[in-house]
């Protein structure tokens, strides 16, 4: 029903824009990762595998990547542990208050990422709210200094930020479960536990996968929370990239790491989509 002209008008401008501002930049990142920097800090446009050699040769990159993945994995796990039961409660047991509770989960998303990370900093610091509170009620005599500038602080903050993101797709998938399936399970004599594990949970797996992917990928690439709260032991892979693009001025090496992250992320999304399809019903 739509003419050729109509289709061209809606297709060409976005294609051109996305080509120029997304596809070309990704290709440039790809190219940079095979270039190098000269002594006089000029980017040399001749092809080399040196950057990749360096990535594999120096353990610091591997170790930081693994530490970042470990932080991201913990964030994902905690976000699921917080988000899933909450989503289940809202979807099945919240009754009339469902909409209100849903909005209450959404509202923190509207508070700036930076501001929430900063708020945790004021809570966890040595003169922070938590430490002075503990001393005030005489639980601790000295401030606990492991709270801030540690991987713990990064995991806590990122969990705080990504729990609502994990909650949303899980809640959506729970809401899509036909209620008569749950009733049928009850009627056929299954206990609430059996109904949950055999009917509800399997049907919510696509939502869990989507939420987990989101939390993992976004926390893996984070560099602001580590800078603000991580301290030296909380450095993540993106912090290395930031310093390579900044003070260290080695864009090609930074591009190689970024490209690795990009491929890792795309691989994860692809993998999770395959799994989602396998588990989705319709």
């Amino acid at each position, binding site marked *: *029903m*739509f003419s050729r002209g*109509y*289709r061209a*008008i*809606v*297709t060409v*401008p*976005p294609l051109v824009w*996305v080509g120029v*501002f*997304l*596809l070309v*930049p990704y290709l*440039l*990142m790809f190219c*940079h990762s095979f270039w190098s920097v000269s002594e006089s800090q000029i980017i040399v446009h001749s092809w080399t595998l040196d950057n990749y050699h360096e990535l594999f040769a120096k353990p610091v990159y591997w170790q930081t990547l693994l530490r970042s993945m470990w932080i991201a994995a913990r964030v994902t796990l905690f976000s699921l542990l*917080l*988000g899933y*039961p*909450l989503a289940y409660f809202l979807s099945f*047991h919240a009754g009339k208050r469902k909409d209100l509770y849903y*909005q209450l989960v959404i*509202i*923190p998303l*509207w*508070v*700036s*990422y*930076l501001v*929430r990370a*900063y*708020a945790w*900093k*004021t*809570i966890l610091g040595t*003169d*922070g*709210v938590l430490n*002075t509170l503990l001393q*005030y009620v005489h639980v601790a005599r000295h401030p606990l200094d492991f709270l801030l500038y540690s991987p713990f602080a990064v995991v806590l903050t990122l969990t*705080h930020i990504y*729990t*609502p993101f994990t909650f949303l797709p899980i809640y959506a998938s729970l809401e899509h479960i036909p209620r008569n399936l749950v009733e049928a399970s009850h009627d056929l004599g299954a*206990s*609430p*536990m059996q109904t949950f594990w055999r009917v509800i949970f399997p049907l919510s797996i696509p939502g869990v996968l989507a939420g987990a992917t*989101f939390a993992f*990928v976004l926390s893996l*690439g984070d*560099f*602001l929370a580590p800078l603000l709260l991580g301290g030296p032991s909380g450095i993540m892979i993106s912090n290395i*990239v*930031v310093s390579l*693009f900044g003070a260290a001025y080695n*864009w090609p090496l*930074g591009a190689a790491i*970024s490209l690795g992250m*990009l491929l890792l*992320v795309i691989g994860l999304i692809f993998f999770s989509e395959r799994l989602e399809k396998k588990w989705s019903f319709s």
Partner: protein
Amino acid sequence: MELFMSGKATAANDTRWLRIHAFAVFAFLYLPIAVLIVYSFNGQGVGGFPPRDLTLNWYKILFEDGPIWEAVLNSLMVAFAAMVIALAFGIPAALALDRAQFPGKALFRRLVLLPLILPGIITGLSLLMLFRMADVKLSLVTIVLGHGTALISVATTEVFAGLQKLNRAQEEASLDLGANYWQTFWRITVPNLKLSIIGAALLIFTLSMDEIAVSFFLIGRDNTLPLEIWGRLRRGITPEINAISTIIFVFSLIAIVFWYRLRVGAEEATEVGAECAPAAESHEGA
């Protein structure tokens, strides 16, 4: 009967644990926000329990702080411009994905949506390389281009979802009755997508106001608000930042309430509309 009773008892028990869990999660989500607001009135600086010497002084300092308001103004301009770009390209992109076939469509869809899930650092850095190669000086304009491009994904997702629910019969009728595509688009398609478009616009505006990872790499001489705050955080923290955050939070709440009422109003309207015109539903698949 006994089995039935015990089943019911555990069910109530489960719900109790779920309630406690839900309460704990909400406490966790709101604790930093509460701390933020309370300490914006704290005379003794950030932290320190209990809060003491409650004062409005930080707000007074904030209102006299020129650079902060300049950054707020910059952020508002950037968010507005990014919103225009994202909608101008995101709405056609959604239409294209919904109703046109072209080579590379699957790739295009993935590419458009990628910034939604990609860590901001990758989008920011790849654009930085583009601007460097093209010899474009970094400024608020490059930030607008970055935000606009990254947030096309939001506009496309929202509008595409709206298009899926759209009743095609109305557009067909409009074309059959002699309206051209342009008229049909403005008089039928856009009004039907109004809610999706407003929702997308609000979301894009807020996300852009808050965006820092992409802006971090594309910043020129002028700061956006998050980058101004970031700069100050690195120099040391004062409750002035709590004060500006509290103000932003209040504005966000107003935006949410506004959006919520708009949506509830529209849903009620469509429910009434659906009752009046049940016949229209059957044409949907056509």
